[in-house]
């Protein structure tokens, strides 16, 4: 089954991105596809390579990048929400791309399920 995901909160402040990641990874392990994760609202802050968490903590941004690299997950950052928050192409971590809100609606149409993680 194809499961699309929306993440509405940034990393660390809320558990949303952690839960979304663990859900996505597990879905893939179980043989489902996660074609796209759409980052909206403060969720766009999951995409910056400037993040430097302490070494004994998980790296939320790198985990998403790795998921994209290993499983072809399309990590889409909303352009409007991203511009508001200073997210531009030159600070994107690997695997992320900036695009429009239509990508969220498209994921809703083309995936079998859309699951939202937020606050």
């Amino acid at each position: 089954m194809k499961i699309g995901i929306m993440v509405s909160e940034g990393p660390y402040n809320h558990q949303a991105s952690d839960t979304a990641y663990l859900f996505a990874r597990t879905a893939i392990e179980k043989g489902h596809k996660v074609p796209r994760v759409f980052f909206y609202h403060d969720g766009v802050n999951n995409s910056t390579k400037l993040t430097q968490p302490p070494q004994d903590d998980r790296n939320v941004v790198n985990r998403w990048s790795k998921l994209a690299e290993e499983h072809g997950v399309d990590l889409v950052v909303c352009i409007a929400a991203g511009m508001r928050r200073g997210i531009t192409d030159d600070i994107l971590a690997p695997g992320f791309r900036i695009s429009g809100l239509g990508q969220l609606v498209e994921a809703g149409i083309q995936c079998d399920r859309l699951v939202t993680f937020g606050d």
Partner: protein
Amino acid sequence: MLHIVNKSATERNSLESCLRMATKGSAVLLIEDAVYAATKGGVAAAQIQAAMADLQIYALGPDLDARGMSARVLDGVKVVDYGGFVDLVTETNACQSWL
């Protein structure tokens, strides 16, 4: 329909609203801070116990464990792991998060 609630019932009204607008036979999955509602002795326990007459109530085990609440889960609440979460999403027709 799978209803996903992630906020503590003693902080927000998400659980209350979810239970009010869930049709009979729906599944409700408590994750993150919402798992406290699925434990014994709290003010939300009565709400959950009443809801179990019409709804299937699930709680995410890793979130219960992380909060030290696993031993306090109410009878009748089904504890699932992330795999069970994925199954709930795929086995229901759609899902809704009560943010």
